[in-house]
């Protein structure tokens, strides 16, 4: 029978509410929580199924149902029947387009459990939404249209769920009503999926034949599938055990969020316990420093605790005055996690701006924030076929395996062992957008074996011998702006003042150190990274380094700035308008670029991002090269 809107289906509270509210509340208080995602292709009926779950668990109020009935008639796609999808498709833009475009969270509860559903869209281009929804889920419900069977998208959803660490999958074979509740159709789909799931490491799959539209086997067993003896979807969700990560018996891990110092007598370390259990007196190790101490007290506003376990937010005090701040990790002393600065990881690229190898991104893992550079991908994964493809970069929704280097050591665990210490995000340092999700596989052995040489002659002592403050005068500007000319004059003046200098010139470096690099965006980034490293070594040697590179991207100039101690990087913008540089065209390059002989030429077919707030700005239309050099030297040595 088709679903008709009657008051029978509107929200109706549990009988216990009226009979014995305190007993009801006591039961609610002790419920556990299950977070799950639903994923499916565009017309698999995801929103309808969620709408149906809300409807059948009597979560929808009478007034909302009345609105739903009106909406169904106006914009619904189900004729005179209720369009359950309208219950959950939230934003105005989506309702117009008739599709879900983002992650939405829904809530309902039954006698035994409370549920949070992440509703994630099935569109090809929205891998990022599914990954977002899956990152907090314990279980995935993957929908398949009974008429279509296991599709490319179905495999993609299963692969992504597996990648994000979901070990429990429900295969919801939907729209059974449209195949006449045919057992064979169901069995074929179940077998197809089981084979694929096993091949990617998902071994807990529960297949259920259902109809979200008609409600078969969603909350109540269907008379139309007498051959199916398994649980309804809701029954399964209520009873499935989804243990695994972050268990109380794992080694203790707590990333420190914040240091609580109300007065000189109290120093507490606040955080959410990621794994394990801790008690006062237990030995702990603070990482990355490795210093050990013991737990003194577990402080909460409700009194001190005898133990803290995974999932609890607490404040710990230590028995010793150990250096510990945000970003550090307090771990059980016997079994601490690893510390490294080079990793292999899977990245899911979430941004329209492609990944650029060599560029420095902000990396956040638990409470740690560092800078990370990415090597060119080892390979990209075709999510439909799981083939490994060669790739030079990652575009939106691409999944690839890469090596990352961080500027400081990270405390971590492999993602498959610990979501909190193995999952990270990458952030673009200019736009502040979250551009990637990462899953650490392992540390590269190199980083554990390559140790820093601690030289007995320090950079400070070398600089003192030369009687000068090392600095990098970083000239940036369009080709033909006058960078090399002015940089030369600056170096001459400094030499006359007995300063020890070195001029790194763009053209010269490209004949040697960087002769393997071209002029693509990726190569330009790597060019600047290498020059930055050389400049840093030279300042460690005590030199004043003068560089003359177009260095068109803000992000790379900022990367070099970040490599150096504060104050050492002096950005000098040689500001010449494009028309003027092109008019001068000292090397005849603009003419070539305009005629198409030269590709990727800055200002013509490759962007130049002018500094927003350079230490020094030289307007070459307003002053001569000599005057500019004098001004720069005066700024450096007042």
């Amino acid at each position, binding site marked *: 029978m088709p679903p008709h809107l009657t008051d029978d289906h509107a929200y109706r509270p549990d009988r216990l509410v009226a009979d014995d509210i305190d007993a009801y509340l006591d039961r609610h*208080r002790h419920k556990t929580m299950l977070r799950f995602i639903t994923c499916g292709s565009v017309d698999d009926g995801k929103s309808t199924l969620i709408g149906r779950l809300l409807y059948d668990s009597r979560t929808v*109020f009478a007034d909302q149902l009345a609105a739903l009935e009106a909406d169904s008639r106006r914009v619904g796609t189900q004729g005179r029947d209720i369009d359950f999808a309208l219950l959950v498709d939230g934003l105005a833009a989506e309702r117009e387009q008739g599709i879900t475009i983002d992650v939405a*969270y829904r809530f309902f509860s039954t006698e035994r459990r409370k549920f949070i559903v992440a509703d994630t869209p099935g569109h090809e281009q929205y891998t990022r939404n599914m990954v977002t929804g899956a990152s907090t889920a314990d279980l995935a419900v993957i929908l398949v249209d009974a008429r279509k069977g296991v599709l490319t998208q179905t495999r993609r959803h299963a692969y992504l769920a597996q990648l994000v660490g979901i070990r429990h999958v429900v295969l919801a074979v939907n729209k059974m009503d449209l195949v006449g509740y045919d057992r064979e159709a169901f069995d074929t789909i179940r077998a197809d999926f089981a084979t694929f799931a096993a091949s990617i490491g998902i071994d807990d799959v529960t297949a259920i034949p259902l109809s979200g539209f008609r409600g078969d086997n969603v909350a109540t067993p269907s008379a139309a599938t007498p051959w199916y003896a398994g649980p309804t979807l809701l029954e399964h969700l209520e009873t499935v055990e989804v243990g695994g990560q972050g268990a109380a018996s794992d080694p203790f891990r707590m990333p420190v969020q914040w240091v609580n110092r109300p007065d000189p007598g109290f120093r507490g370390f606040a955080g*959410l316990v990621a794994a394990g259990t801790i008690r006062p007196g237990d030995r702990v190790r603070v990482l990355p420093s490795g210093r050990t101490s013991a737990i003194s007290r577990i*402080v909460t506003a409700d009194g001190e605790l005898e133990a803290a376990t995974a999932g609890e937010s607490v404040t710990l005090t230590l028995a010793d005055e150990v250096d510990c701040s945000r970003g550090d990790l307090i771990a059980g002393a016997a079994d601490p996690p690893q510390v490294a600065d080079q990793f292999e990881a899977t990245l899911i690229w979430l941004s329209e701006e492609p990944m650029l190898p060599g560029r420095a991104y902000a990396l956040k893992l638990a409470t740690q924030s560092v800078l990370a550079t990415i090597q060119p991908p080892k390979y990209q994964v075709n999510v439909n076929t799981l083939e490994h493809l060669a790739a030079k970069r990652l575009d939106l929704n691409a999944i690839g395996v890469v090596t990352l280097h961080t500027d400081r050591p990270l405390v971590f665990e492999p993602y498959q062992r610990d979501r909190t210490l193995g999952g*990270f995000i990458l952030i673009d340092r200019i736009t502040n957008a979250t551009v990637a999700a990462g899953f650490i596989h392992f540390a590269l052995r190199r980083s554990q074996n390559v140790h820093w040489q601690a030289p007995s002659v320090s950079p400070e002592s070398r600089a003192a011998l030369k009687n000068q403050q090392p600095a990098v005068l970083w000239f940036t500007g369009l080709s033909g702006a006058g960078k090399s000319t002015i940089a030369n004059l600056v170096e001459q003046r400094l030499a006359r003042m007995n300063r020890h200098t070195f001029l790194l010139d763009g053209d010269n470096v490209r004949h040697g150190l960087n002769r393997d690099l071209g002029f693509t965006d990726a190569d330009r980034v790597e060019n600047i990274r290498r020059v930055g490293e050389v400049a840093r070594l030279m300042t460690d040697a005590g030199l004043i380094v003068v560089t003359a590179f177009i260095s068109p991207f803000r992000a790379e100039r900022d990367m070099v700035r970040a490599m150096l101690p504060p104050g050492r990087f002096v950005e000098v913008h040689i500001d010449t308008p494009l028309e003027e540089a092109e008019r001068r065209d000292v090397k005849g390059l603009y003419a070539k670029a305009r005629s198409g002989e030269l590709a990727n030429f800055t200002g013509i077919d490759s962007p130049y991002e002018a500094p927003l707030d350079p230490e020094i700005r030289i307007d070459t239309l307003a002053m001569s090269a000599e005057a500019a050099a004098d001004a720069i030297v005066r700024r450096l040595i007042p």
Partner: protein
Amino acid sequence: MADGRHALTHLQRLEAEAIHILREVVAEAERPVMLYSVGKDSAVMLHLARKAFYPSPPPFPLLHVDTTWKFRAMYDLRDQVARDSGMELIVHHNPEARERGINPFDHGALHTDLWKTEGLKQALDRHRFDAAFGGARRDEEKSRAKERVFSFRSAAHRWDPKAQRPELWNLYNARKAAGESIRVFPLSNWTELDVWQYIQLNAVPIVPLYFAAPRPVVERDGLLLMVDDDRFPLRPGEVPQQRSIRFRTLGCYPLTGAVESRATTLSQVIQETLLATTSERQGRAIDKDAGGGGMEKKKQEGYF
């Protein structure tokens, strides 16, 4: 159970998550503030903040964007809570709304726009707050269901639902450019029942108006309105009657409908809430403006 995470009840998980969120903001934002509306959700949020930073007081001020039209009992609790928590209380009144005498009786939707939406933007700008906690929950309304926990706002306080940052695990990206800000919702994953139950289990102080008592009311346009002070313009023939009423939500008293009730304890209030068959915000006029996309549009313009 051997598995620690699932041995926690859902309320324990929600509390731990909210405390984690509050601490992340304090660690990463420069000038956080807590939007305090004196309602039950604000009460729970403030209680969580006091737990999160104990034994320190929460290291940020409370901001009440006032309309001068709240119930008197709300002002009483607000001032008492500020004293008890040891936190600074900032009360902001939009000077333009005050000067023009904007009120809910004569100005309808403009009242909310000027006092609340504009007032909030003014207060955030004036104090240069870069992160503001709000007590909104995803189960309240459809556009809220899609909003992130860390919800980014442009320098003009606009929300762009299509340009939301992906939010993975419990890793929040709090980076922003100068002038931009973040609204943070620690109660995102709570339901109305969770809030009530938490209030009961933790004895969180709430405004007495949530409990039934005899109060003077008039019935107007299908709403039971309480005559809270002598600014209430009675229409010809209207005589306030004493009725046993309480409120499911609290806002400006002329805009907030009461329900007739005998519920004088928390258990009874929760019982009544669960037995009611209309959705929570029915009593408030704000969602009904501007058709189906009302709240989403308001949010884009900077409403909390």
